[in-house]
């Protein structure tokens, strides 16, 4: 199992409440979420679970660990375009992605980097470094995307190596195969 697959597991399985998911081995949290030992559970984590949202452009972000006051949100807006919808030649939507966070721990020498990735992590883009106000802005073209913030010792990275502090998923990422559901119960996927 590769490191990236493990990270995907954390992104998917970490509980909205910030509690380590019992399906994950404790050593994984020791490696990936070093801040978890000293972080208190907060109401903000409980009240912002990912759910089917009426706003297709909002990406609520949740703390992956129990952390006092950590909160994040991201929003997609269409990139500047003379047309009614912003796409490239392949038909991918071109979005501006704005990330706003608050309450993240920032020990000396640590930078918070925002990453955007496809759900299976075959493509990863560094959106940018959170500024002093905890914000970042960048452009994305993924149809489905994960957005997450990591704590890093360096900003000169192509892939993250530090712990994931906040994570969210686009509304498109919530689409789920209809096989086995409702009228398609029993049909093969």
């Amino acid at each position, binding site marked *: 199992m590769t490191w990236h697959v493990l990270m995907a597991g954390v992104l998917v399985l970490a509980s909205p409440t910030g509690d380590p998911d019992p399906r994950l081995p404790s050593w994984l949290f020791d490696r990936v979420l070093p801040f978890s030992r000293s972080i208190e559970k907060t109401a903000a984590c409980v009240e912002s679970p990912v759910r089917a949202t009426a706003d297709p452009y909002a990406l609520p972000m949740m703390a992956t660990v129990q952390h006092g006051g950590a909160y994040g949100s991201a929003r997609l807006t269409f990139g500047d375009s003379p*047309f009614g919808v912003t796409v490239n030649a392949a038909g991918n939507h071109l979005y501006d992605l704005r990330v706003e966070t608050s309450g993240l721990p920032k020990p000396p020498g640590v930078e918070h980097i925002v990453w955007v990735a496809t759900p299976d992590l075959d493509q990863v883009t560094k959106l940018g470094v959170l500024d002093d106000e905890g914000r970042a802005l960048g452009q994305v073209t993924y*149809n489905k995307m994960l957005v997450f913030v990591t704590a890093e010792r360096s900003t000169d990275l192509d892939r993250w190596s530090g712990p994931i502090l906040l994570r969210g998923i686009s509304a498109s990422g*919530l689409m789920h195969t209809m096989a086995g*559901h*409702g009228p398609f119960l029993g049909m093969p996927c």
Partner: protein
Amino acid sequence: MASLVAVGATLGVVAAHGQPTVQSAGDSSVDHSMHHGSAGTDPARWRMPPMSPNMPMPPGLEGMIPPQTPFLPGIGTDPATVPDAVFREVVELRDGDSIDLEAGLVRRTINGRTFVMYGFNGQYPGPLIKAPEGATITVNFRNGTEFPTALHWHGVRLDNRFDGVPHLTQEPVLPGGTFEYRVFFRDAGIYWYHPHHREDITQDLGLYGNLLISSRDADYYSPVNTEELVMLDDILIDDVGLFPYGQEDATQALMGRFGNVLLVNGEPQYELEVRRGDVVRFYLTNVSNTRIFNVSFGGAPIKLVGSDVGLFEKEVWVESVPIAPAERYVVEVLFETAGDFVLSNRIQAIDHFRAEFVAHEDTLGVISVSAEPTETSHRDAFDRLRLNTAAIEEIDGFRRHFTRAPDHQLTLDVEIGALPLPLLQMMAVDTLYYPPVEWNDVMPEMNYHATGANVRWIMRDEATGRENMDIDWRFRVGDVVKIRVVNDPSSAHPMHHPMHLHGQRFLVVERDGVEATNLVWKDTALVPQGSTVDLLVEMSNPGSWMMHCHIAEHLETGMSAVFEVEG
């Protein structure tokens, strides 16, 4: 899951009518054609619409048909007696000239198969009418179709009496009847004409044509080697023939009627031959009922020049041209090297069943570039991105209005009634995600059950709560009105809407709180689902005017209103 609650509540209210019919087993008039094989040869009978073989039929929908009578034109007429349609002619008119225009049955051949459709003057598309800015022409119209109708001159700021909206600006032209239109071309640009009654049928079957209005300014456009008018369309055909339409109401009322054969100027394969180094100006018009195209030219550089009612403030390079129903864009394209350049529609389709995005490309045609060099090179002009100072200066007079509060807010919504239960279940699952625009219809077997009997699309005036034709907006000539259009993402079936205002022009000044940076006068603006768009309308033309969604099935199922402009 607010949507699910809304659907359920609505179901209880209206379940008494509009319930789709269940076809008895063994009746060959229902067939999931191109999916479970075909049966029957009478095209004017309901069967399941063509759909992707990868998409399973939801149990419970098999055998169900819409509650409408299936309709196709010319039923009972021997196709051999219907004249073969010919490719459009170009008619150049001057101020005071007139043209006869008759809508009637034609015989069309598409991909080797023959169908009875409609055409203006026996042509596809209708005649291309060229006229100078400031001209008034007379159109002697005769209705040779089965439907009452009227001709709408889309985007043209003409006398309200000739705008062509039945029961609003004129009485409908009955079958066999006539009407004389006087069409004044106030603005240079690319426009089009089409019926404004049951255009889900009559426009879809070929009743559309372009109007190319030249500017008084000889330097209005950059020099090019040739100009091409491209009308983008699609049509729904299965093994049996043309797929029927609902006679009493539009079918496919949720997504609009997507075709499965894409057409350029009425042909399934567009062809153009140019020389190496030629620059071609394309006037693109989307005349489809609902499909948004994303057009590119095989990697050839594209310069965006103009749109509905004039030129952009500044020319820009673009990768492709996303164009919604009824919109027009003017682009210039340089074909620098010899070879074939594919005119493509490239999209990210959604497979809802598998919850996947699927890269999809339709070949609309081919531009063949010969090795022979261009006779006159316009490369220098093409490389230069112009600032259109006349457009900028005109728009300058409106900039003070850009940031002020909206005068009105329209919310776009939908009510859904007695759809089949499996369809409602599917829609509930579907509420997990709706894309900004629906590029494709991957669930046509669901969509065709949605009709005017069980779907009502809504424009709601937030200040009064009034909806659609109950909206009562009154303005005066000279008013500059800011209309905020909110496409409610929490509705039962969010979808994009190309919003069209008759008789006026407007600027799209803001999208989702972000100010637009390159403006052009428009008459149709795409509002993606969940988006908010601010339109700044110059009320310049007195009369009673329509505003509506230009997805034909949305218009036919309620999504229209009237506003008054007093002179």
